[in-house]
């Protein structure tokens, strides 16, 4: 009973301090909007559906881009872990591209795809797939050879070994790579949305950008809050359970 109380007091205190600071009038409401203003923005935007619509646009972009990124990264990782010639060539390219922040692709993406969904997806894919490629490569390489030997003595061959041994054995590492890939995808999509207008729909980043353009800081903070919530939700609903499941099942810390 004591722990929730402390937390409740802390967050209430934080809100109160913010409110008092904002009410003190030392800073202009543009610099420091009051918490009630932010709340009222959120209520309004939730009511008129603009938040939900933006979240949907962002979510769809993220989902499609992320899946494409996985679709590119996984097979690449398999190739580079399996063939030395691939890891010497494609692997090096992937390593270089992985250190390239994917927002750097925005100018090229805009030229190549125009202000379309394609440009956004390209940026997200560039942010995701290399992390996943590297994690897949890592995961496959770090499988203890004893698993394959044991499987072979029991008569496992070819595709059966891949599906029943290699895939599950590499899953913990691949999963952590997918989580990292998601973090990068999320960050690059937000960056791209905040700074680039796209003709095919406004996401959360655009909403935040419009808030800035209109000097509506209640909107900026409100959207930031929603972004935190979306990010936490993805983490808590998708990755944490998956990681917990893997940890419980595999008994690993990976």
């Amino acid at each position, binding site marked *: 009973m004591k722990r929730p109380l402390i937390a409740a007091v802390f967050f209430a205190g934080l809100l109160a301090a913010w409110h008092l600071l904002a009410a003190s009038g030392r800073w202009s409401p543009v610099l420091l909007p009051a918490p009630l203003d932010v709340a009222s923005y959120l209520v309004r935007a939730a009511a008129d559906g603009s938040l939900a619509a933006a979240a949907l646009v962002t979510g769809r972009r993220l989902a499609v881009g992320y899946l494409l990124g996985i679709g590119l990264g996984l097979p690449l990782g398999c190739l580079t872990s399996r063939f030395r010639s691939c890891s010497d060539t494609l692997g090096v390219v992937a390593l270089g591209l992985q250190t390239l922040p994917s927002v750097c692709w925005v100018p090229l993406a*805009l*030229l190549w*795809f*125009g*202000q379309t969904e*394609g440009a956004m997806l390209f940026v997200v894919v560039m942010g995701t797939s290399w992390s996943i490629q590297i994690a897949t490569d890592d995961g496959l390489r770090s499988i203890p050879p004893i698993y394959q030997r044991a499987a072979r003595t029991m008569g496992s061959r070819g595709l059966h070994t891949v599906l029943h041994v290699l895939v599950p054995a590499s899953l913990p590492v691949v999963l952590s790579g997918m989580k990292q890939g998601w973090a990068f995808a999320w960050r690059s999509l937000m960056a791209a949305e905040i700074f680039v207008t796209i*003709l095919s729909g406004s996401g959360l980043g655009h909403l935040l950008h419009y808030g800035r353009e209109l000097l509506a800081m209640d909107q900026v903070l409100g959207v930031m809050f929603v972004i935190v919530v979306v990010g936490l939700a993805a983490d808590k609903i998708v990755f944490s359970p998956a990681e917990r499941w893997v940890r419980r099942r595999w008994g690993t810390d990976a």
Partner: protein
Amino acid sequence: APKDDAAPGAPATAAAPVVIRFGHFPNVTHAHGLVAHSLTREGRGWFEERLGPGVKVEWFIYNAGPSAMEALLSGSLDVTYVGPNPALNAHLKSKGEDVRVLAGATLGGAGLVVQGDGRIKEPRDFRGKKVATPQLGNTQDVACRAWLKDAGFEITQTGGDVSVLATQNPDQLALFQKGDLDAVWTVEPWVSRLEREANGKLLVPEPDAMTTILVASAKFTKERPELARKLTDAHRALTEWIVATPADAKRLVRAELLAETRQEMSADLLDHCWPRMTFTSAIRLEDFTAFVKKAQSVGYLRDAGELSRLVAPGKDVAR
């Protein structure tokens, strides 16, 4: 990927409405775009009425020339009002393949404003100062850099004797008010606002400089020459109408600016800057040659390139 509305050269039919994707900025120097966009909003589109049935105009708003040109090059846009420099830059960078100037639009309305406290009186006072322009590589930016270069300063993309900083117009005003910027080279209505709201002094007016022109993608002029010609004619008519009925034009400009930026522009402010602009659809080739020289002198362009295909709307359209 660029959208193809119809096969190359195919005439517009009523069955498949032709969509013209038209760009402009929410600036008073883009009065043509503002007026026409506003009329489209009111359901009596200027261009729609003159291009015939089956043609639909979609308006897109850009904040700066380079991104408008980017959209034109990537096929997201067919026609746009834009400053001459980005258009020229895009034309030369694409080796003359992709951009065509259809007509002129606005002269003047740009200038260099310095702080009114007397910290800058003459060109040589600029050493070590910070000057803002709306966007790197746009018309004012090139003009500013070339002007400073003529004054004997060494300027690079990232620094030099004078810091030339690409800063968005609203930010310019705020920074200028705080005194963080020493001078700003920009367009109306910001020139007027800097003067009136931040005690700025107009040091270099540019009453005669080309500020806005109408450009199309070469793909558009090539695939729909007839439409391009009609569109140019409609633009000429629009220019004449703006010059003839300034009061109506100003009303539409203010309405459109309010719709796009959600901020009211005072009639007083618009009246203040309107006379500084000249609306004309004429194109002066020698201006472009001068621009190329300037862009080369500030290091934005390396090769002079070929201008023959840039301003040849009649030739392109006629073919």
